[in-house]
């Protein structure tokens, strides 16, 4: 959750609001600036910025947190990470999450958003279907539920014997799912966990896309319709290209959330890792290494890798979107 970057134009904005204070510094003004800027900034620097900076240093030490000695070991921690099979496994899992979760979430959210906004009758004004508000309001709600609770609810839904899912599947005759351990099986644990994250996010992004689609002038749709384009064609060639920026933002935020996944995985797999570590994520491994094993230097190095993966991910999304735009304009 952040402000969108396009609202961020400090330079232009400063220009817009001309400053008129060239008067002498009074006590009022000085105390005002000190308190208004100083207090929030101090808290921010101490608790947010300084830990980030310290983390870079700790990641190059062998510190275990409680011993007074802290030796600088250079990049040794990172070399060790490369040979750490459990950690490599966690990185791969995170990449899977970062690729699949945003893709599926955005696909479903886009389908729901287009149906809600433009699936109405093909005559008269372009409009959505009836009851759009209700569909949207209900589907937005999971966004407000604490992630840990979403995880716990689904852990019960997936429960092998008394869970909702197996109950449903066996009741429609699929008896092979009786007592099927969704979260205990190597092949299903990861997809099942991904679904939990997707379930929690779809509503929010549906609302985002609905807003973006409504930003497209109705005339555009009417023109496309006059040209004889069908609904599917309209969605693929008109809607998606026109809301590309929203999709990009959504992909980045979803990717960042999915790369973390700490909360969901903690709720679904209390003993970190799931079957054969198939659902272990970097954040869980970091947490265990730091707060259970006490290897703080090594754990911080994991944090640095996680930050690097996150930034790399954002960069890749930017480049891909950029390239797809360039190709289209070249045509």
């Amino acid at each position, binding site marked *: 959750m952040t402000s969108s970057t396009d609202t961020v134009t400090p330079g232009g904005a400063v220009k817009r609001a001309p400053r008129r204070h060239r008067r002498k510094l009074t006590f009022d003004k000085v105390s005002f600036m000190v308190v208004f*800027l100083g207090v929030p900034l101090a808290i921010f620097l101490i608790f947010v910025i300084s830990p980030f900076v310290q983390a870079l240093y700790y990641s190059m030490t062998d510190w275990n947190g409680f011993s007074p000695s802290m030796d600088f070991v250079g990049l040794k921690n990172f070399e060790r990470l490369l040979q750490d099979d459990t950690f490599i496994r966690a990185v791969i899992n995170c990449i899977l999450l970062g690729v699949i979760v945003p893709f599926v979430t955005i696909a479903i959210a886009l389908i729901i958003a287009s149906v809600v906004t433009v699936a109405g009758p093909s005559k008269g004004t372009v409009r959505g279907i009836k009851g759009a508000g209700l569909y949207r309001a209900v589907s937005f709600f999971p966004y407000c539920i604490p992630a840990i609770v979403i995880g716990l609810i689904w852990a019960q839904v997936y429960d092998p014997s008394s869970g909702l899912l197996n109950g449903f599947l066996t009741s429609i005759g699929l008896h092979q799912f009786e007592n099927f351990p969704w979260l205990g099986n190597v092949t299903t644990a990861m997809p099942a966990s991904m679904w939990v994250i997707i379930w929690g996010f779809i509503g929010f992004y549906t609302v985002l896309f609905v*807003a973006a689609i409504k930003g497209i002038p109705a005339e555009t749709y009417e023109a496309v319709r006059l040209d004889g384009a069908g609904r599917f064609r309209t969605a693929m060639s008109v809607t998606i290209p026109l809301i590309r920026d929203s999709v990009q933002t959504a992909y980045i935020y979803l990717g960042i959330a999915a790369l973390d996944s700490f909360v969901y995985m903690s709720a679904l797999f209390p003993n970190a890792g799931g079957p054969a570590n198939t659902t272990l994520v970097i954040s869980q491994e970091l947490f265990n290494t730091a707060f259970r094993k006490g290897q703080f230097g090594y754990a911080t190095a994991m944090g640095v890798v996680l930050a690097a993966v996150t930034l790399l991910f954002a960069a890749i999304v930017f480049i891909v979107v950029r390239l797809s735009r360039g190709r289209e304009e070249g045509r």
Partner: protein
Amino acid sequence: MMTVTTSPVTDRPAQTPVAPGGRSQKQSRGDVAVAASSHTLLIIWLVIVVVPLVWVLMSSFKTTDEILSSPFAPPKSFHLDNYVNAWNGAGIGSYFVNTLIVVGCALVIVMILGAMCAYVLARFRFFGARAIYYLMLAGLTFPVFLAIVPLFFILRNIGLLNTLPGLILTYVAFALPFTVFFLYSFFQTLPDEIYEAAQVDGASEWRTFFQVMLPMARPGMASVAIFNFLGLWNQFLLPVALNSDQSHYVLTQGMASFASQAGYSIDFGALYAAVVITVVPVLIVYVFFQRQLQGSVSAGTMK
């Protein structure tokens, strides 16, 4: 784009009246098919969203025996013991109180500090303003996990580890960049004339802010406060890492430890009741501010 719309997201097309007597009233067969399949699709989705939630609510009224023997049957009677057990026995009551204290204090502090900081950044020109702005951006971008270990030791060194004030401070610090960003654009849109009028009338900077500018920013403050409330209420990593004293647990971490403790002997009824207790405050906020929440998302400021 920059202001918060508090106006509801209206369904522009859905409300368009059908032209009386026109041909458009008669829907083509294709349209009916599309509408039917769209509704089917959406209803399936609603079922997927709603059924797990309703199932949890229903289970919270059943005894643990009932839950294990007939997971899908409705409760035989309205069994409120689960709520009592969860509230007292599992400690959810004290977690709830802790959460109220932490989230309440953090919310008030971050709104005040965030508004002050955003106001100064947005309306005064001074050396370093741009640098502070980008520093805030950095604070939003990097994963909290990178900071968690040093943060642990910072809090330990100042003696605030495992205390509620320590947790409040970190909540404030990590909610600050978001708050400042959002309010920054809001304060920029406020007219200069009013500020100047206040100055001419001899109001001090302090008074101008608290009695003139802040009240004008109320719509923006409301939206940010709602999002901050949800974000802080749902916060999990910070308390788990920085607040390991069980008597100071907040709801989210209390839920996690309750669910993971003692494997077999979980009181499932109480677990479901605890889930409901955790979700209800959020549900209330959602029902009251639903339009405002969706409006803020729609304004493109909350991506």
